């Protein structure tokens, strides 16, 4: 639904406070392995009514060495209204994330969110399957949290280069998910093996919905399997953003909507889209 439709339907009113720019305080910012860090923030309740798959737009600090300018969009790794906590799992790759890595306990961080349209879990979807690689697991972690809350069965297939960078296994297990790990090092992460694993699940337990993010190869695989077995699915996509709110129109991607190629904003119509309409890039 477009904003104007939602506005007319009374769902959105001026400055209705669905999105907030707030100052948070760093609780911890610790390395998870050689490449990834986990940032835990003390956040106000106003920003903690999140949906799995939504993201925050983060104003990374300016340091002596790093001067990021635009905000950086980052998917939510964890949120808890009870604890007043917001978590992000990030890979240190560029100016923004290098600056984020310098934050220590007590530092403040300005965040804008929660933003975008998250994942859906329909009432009749009992057996959920998620497939993610590397930092993509971060995006899908809140989905496991929500599946647990809704008493749904979840199998999480986690892929990585090697066992050292496999993350979140314990986290997914603690949320009641069954975890299957595959790695490049073991030679188990290839598409054909993934296909066999997923087909096996469909044949045994059955799969009602599939979720993924980030990877072109995984998207294509799930599109094929979904089309073959008529299983719906969703994908969280990334795109470079400026405003994060839908104003600047920079974060568009192409989608195939019933044969028509349309451009949609990842920040506003997404970041979660139907697997069948997403286009490989």
């Amino acid at each position, binding site marked *: 639904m*477009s*904003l*104007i439709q939602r*506005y007319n339907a009374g769902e*959105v*009113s*001026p*400055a*209705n*406070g*669905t*999105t*907030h*720019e707030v100052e948070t305080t760093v609780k911890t910012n610790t390395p998870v392995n050689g490449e990834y860090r986990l940032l835990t923030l003390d956040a106000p309740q106003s920003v903690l009514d999140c949906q799995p798959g939504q993201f925050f737009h983060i*104003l990374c600090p300016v340091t002596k060495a790093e*001067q*990021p*300018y*635009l*905000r950086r969009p980052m998917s939510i790794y964890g949120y808890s209204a009870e604890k007043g906590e917001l978590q992000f799992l990030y890979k240190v790759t560029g100016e923004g994330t290098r600056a984020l890595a310098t934050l220590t306990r007590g530092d403040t961080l*300005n965040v*804008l969110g929660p933003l975008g349209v998250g994942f859906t879990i329909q009432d009749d979807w009992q057996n959920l399957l998620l497939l993610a690689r590397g930092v993509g697991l971060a995006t899908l972690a809140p989905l496991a949290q929500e599946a647990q809350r809704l008493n749904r069965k979840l199998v999480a297939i986690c892929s990585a280069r090697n066992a050292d960078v496999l993350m979140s296994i314990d986290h997914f297990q603690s949320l009641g998910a069954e975890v299957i790990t595959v790695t490049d090092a073991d030679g188990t992460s290839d598409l054909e093996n993934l296909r066999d694993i997923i087909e096996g699940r469909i044949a045994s337990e059955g799969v009602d919905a599939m979720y993924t993010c980030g990877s072109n190869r995984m998207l294509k695989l799930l599109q094929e399997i979904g089309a073959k077995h008529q299983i719906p699915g969703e994908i969280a996509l990334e*795109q*470079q953003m*400026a*405003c*994060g*709110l*839908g*104003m*600047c*129109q*920079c*974060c*568009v*991607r192409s989608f195939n909507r019933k044969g028509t190629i349309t*451009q949609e904003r990842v920040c*506003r119509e997404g970041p979660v889209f139907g697997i069948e309409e997403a286009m490989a890039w």
Partner: protein
Amino acid sequence: MVDLSTRIGSLTLANPIMPASGTFSEDLSEVLDLHQLGAHVTKTITAEKRGGNPTPRVCEVRGSMLNSIGIPSKGVQHFIDNTIPFYNAYDVPLVVSISANSADEFARICEQVSVPGVAAIEVNISCPNIEEDGKAFAMRPSTTTTVMEKLRSASDLPLWAKLSPNTGETIEVAQAAEEAGADALVVANTLLSMAIDIHTRKPKLGNLMGGLSGPSLKPIALRMAYQCAKSVQIPVIGCGGISTVEDIVEYLIAGATAVQVGTATFINPNIMVTLLGQLETYLETRNIADISDLVGSVRDEDAADSVVFMETAP
């Protein structure tokens, strides 16, 4: 009590702060109370549906950004049916930004958006992306005259001409727009720029080049606002790199009667309302009762005549 209201020709704004076209949409209402702005300025629309430029459409440079969005547009009818009613729920003047590839098309869309609920039309004669090689009407006085005359005869609404920094003839273009019937000048749009990734050796924008905006553009746009205010009688609206209250005051002193805030909203979506509060405090603490006391108050009388309009000053 400070009087923040300002007049742009026949239009009175409750305060001088409004968004710059392209950095504002209905979406901002989720973060900010749109009632508080001096005016609402919509993203440029074209008559036809347009897809926009290839991605990446933005990149950041030190303390600023480049964009080449390419004016994606859902067309004029979608705008009239959806966007205008949304803004008419607010008691804030609505300024509609339009663009086109030819003077005749420009005049046609100008006429189409001259409807009740629209307070003024910002004519984007300067967008550096839309025409081949980044050329735009506002690069030359002659093309400015041609398009502004056609626009003038197409609408009775106030016309705000948005000028380009991509010209060596700022004053001549400003005067051409005024003579052809512009009611105000918006100074200025983005500056054509480029950035290259040294590792991949690829330009950082899908369109190769794009417009610079943000704090590094401010001295250039401020210089242009000053030159325009000195050389035309119609109001000048300052636009370019504003992110602090000092930036706003500087534009007012240079001769602007209102300002547009753009890229700063991407960094802090609440910034326009924050700046409004800061501007009020600034004026109160200095016992300035009316912002018109600041407008054009630059003390340039000591400068030698020869340097004032030197466009090639070292």
